[in-house]
């Protein structure tokens, strides 16, 4: 049992990083569709179950797995060519490993950390591995022996160099504010209040650094509007022009994972991490029943909203009614499971587990919201030109972040 419980953080990390990718892809497509007055993927199904099109992403993954591997003949260095996507993937994956999804929890007197890798230097790890991701890209571009590839990777590399500095400095100002580089400490620091009413979230404490962090996070992950590195209108697909099948898939997954990691980072240092505002683990432990009730009520509210929405909108074909019924059953079942689960945990006073569960749910909610924001931004803003990207990075964000660090340091030193 304890081994099982030890594995929980890993499983969660895997879920949040790897398993979120198909969901993200689905979200991206559907949101893009809805923003653009389209429907997005909605046809792919397993036995009539379409999960709103989510099956499409799964089908895509399957397709990518089984596609023919093509190695262009002009690629001289097969090893680097093959290692590049893996490098990107591993870097993105590892950077996720230090994100805490909840407070520590106890079971049977054992203490578990809700963090895949229980390290104290969270931010440094994150920065280290997030920065490493670009090596994969550079290697891919170079090993492709393709002009588009090398141009894409050069763009990506220069972009990362330009924005890494500003990002680090922005994070430095958070580190100064929170006085720690440990994510968990940061989260706890954010559960307090600021100016009596506001939650002391990073976004409130450090608005400028927040802005810088968000912008640089976009740039770091090569997301629109900073995706000149794969600007298909000029350089086909940038660094992954010569990649196909699962090799491309790895880049694809890595990109989304990097995005997920960035979101997780933002949740953690800007939006109070796994905590609800004003409420920390201690408070939860003290008002467990009330909190549980709140969560169950919230869940049922969302469930009923979702059911109403399905009822109204799932009119695609004659089988949709049947499908909807299955969804109702599943959703209600899930709700029932949550309600029963909480009841069980509350009744048997497994407060630590209950708190962990609630915190993971909170984290997930914030996480999805940030991801939504990522997607929303992508389908709103046009791509920056390469020179504009550089200008923004060096001329605006860098001085701003330096100034912010200085001001923060002065305030913190002055306050102490």
């Amino acid at each position: 049992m304890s081994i099982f419980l030890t594995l929980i953080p890993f499983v969660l990390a895997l879920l949040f990083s790897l398993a979120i990718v198909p969901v993200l892809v689905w979200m991206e497509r559907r949101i893009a569709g809805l923003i653009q007055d389209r429907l997005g993927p909605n046809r792919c199904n397993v036995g009539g179950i379409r999960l709103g099109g989510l099956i499409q992403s799964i089908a895509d993954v399957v397709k990518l797995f089984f596609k023919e591997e093509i190695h262009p003949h002009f690629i001289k260095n097969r090893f680097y060519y093959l290692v590049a996507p893996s490098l990107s993937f591993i870097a993105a994956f590892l950077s996720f490993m230090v994100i805490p999804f909840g407070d520590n929890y106890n079971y049977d007197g054992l203490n578990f950390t809700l963090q895949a890798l229980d390290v104290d230097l969270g931010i440094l790890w994150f920065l280290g591995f997030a920065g490493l991701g670009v090596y994969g890209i550079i290697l891919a571009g170079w090993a492709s022996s393709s002009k588009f590839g090398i141009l894409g990777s050069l763009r990506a590399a220069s972009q990362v160099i330009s924005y890494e500095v500003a990002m680090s400095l922005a994070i430095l100002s958070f580190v100064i504010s929170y006085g720690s580089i440990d994510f968990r400490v940061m989260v706890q620091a954010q559960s307090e209040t600021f100016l009596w009413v506001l939650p002391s979230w990073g976004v409130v404490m450090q608005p400028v650094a927040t802005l810088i962090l968000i912008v640089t996070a976009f740039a770091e992950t090569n997301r629109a509007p900073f995706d000149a590195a794969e600007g298909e209108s000029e350089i086909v697909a940038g660094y992954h022009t010569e990649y196909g099948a699962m090799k491309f898939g790895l880049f694809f997954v890595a990109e989304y994972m990097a995005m997920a990691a960035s979101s997780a980072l933002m949740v953690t240092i800007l939006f109070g991490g796994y905590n609800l505002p004003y409420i920390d683990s201690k408070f939860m432990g003290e008002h467990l029943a009330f909190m549980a009730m709140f969560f169950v009520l919230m869940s049922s509210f969302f469930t009923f909203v979702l059911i109403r929405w399905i009822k109204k909108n799932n009119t695609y074909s004659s089988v949709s009614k049947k499908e909807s019924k299955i969804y109702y059953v599943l959703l209600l079942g899930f709700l029932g499971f949550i309600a029963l689960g909480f009841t069980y945990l509350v009744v048997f006073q497994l407060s630590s587990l209950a708190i962990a569960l609630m915190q993971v749910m909170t984290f997930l909610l914030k996480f999805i919201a940030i991801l939504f924001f990522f997607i929303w931004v992508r389908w709103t803003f046009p791509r920056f030109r390469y020179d504009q990207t550089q200008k923004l990075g060096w001329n605006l964000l860098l001085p701003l972040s330096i100034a912010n660090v200085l001001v923060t340091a002065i305030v913190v030193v002055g306050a102490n």
Partner: protein
Amino acid sequence: MGIKTVQRPQKSLKHSLYISALYGGLKTTIKKFTQNISDIDSIPTINYPEQQPSDITSRYRGVHRLTKRADDTISCVACFMCATACPSKCIFIEATQRTDGVDEKMPRTFTIDMLECVFCGYCVEACPCDAIRMDSGIFTLIAKQREDFLYDKEKLLSIKGAFGNEVSNAK
């Protein structure tokens, strides 16, 4: 003389911060998103292929076809104007002597590689004989292998126009 010089708008602080513009953009898209998600049926969508589009007009650039003259002979004279105009160089013609007395020259082979075609319609514009048209109304190109996308003369001749006016309008 005819050039009007337009002053670029002066950059105000509001402009250079871009905040309001960013906000405006995000507002527009989220508005669309919420509107659409709350009433998905309001998105005008054709459930193709169960539902077939009904709004294809004669100007729609569908799959090419070769027209015939009033006397039911091929109207193409293999002048290569289409192949010359083609930006993707996907029209392959071999000319030969025409023996049916209608004209001097006709294509022996006339092949369009539909996989390379970008459906720009330049070939139709270029044709002096109204011999190639894109008025078939066919918008789906499906085949099981690459070779099937090579539309040869017989195939192109067999495609019917979807909007009447079968015969070439050339003199």
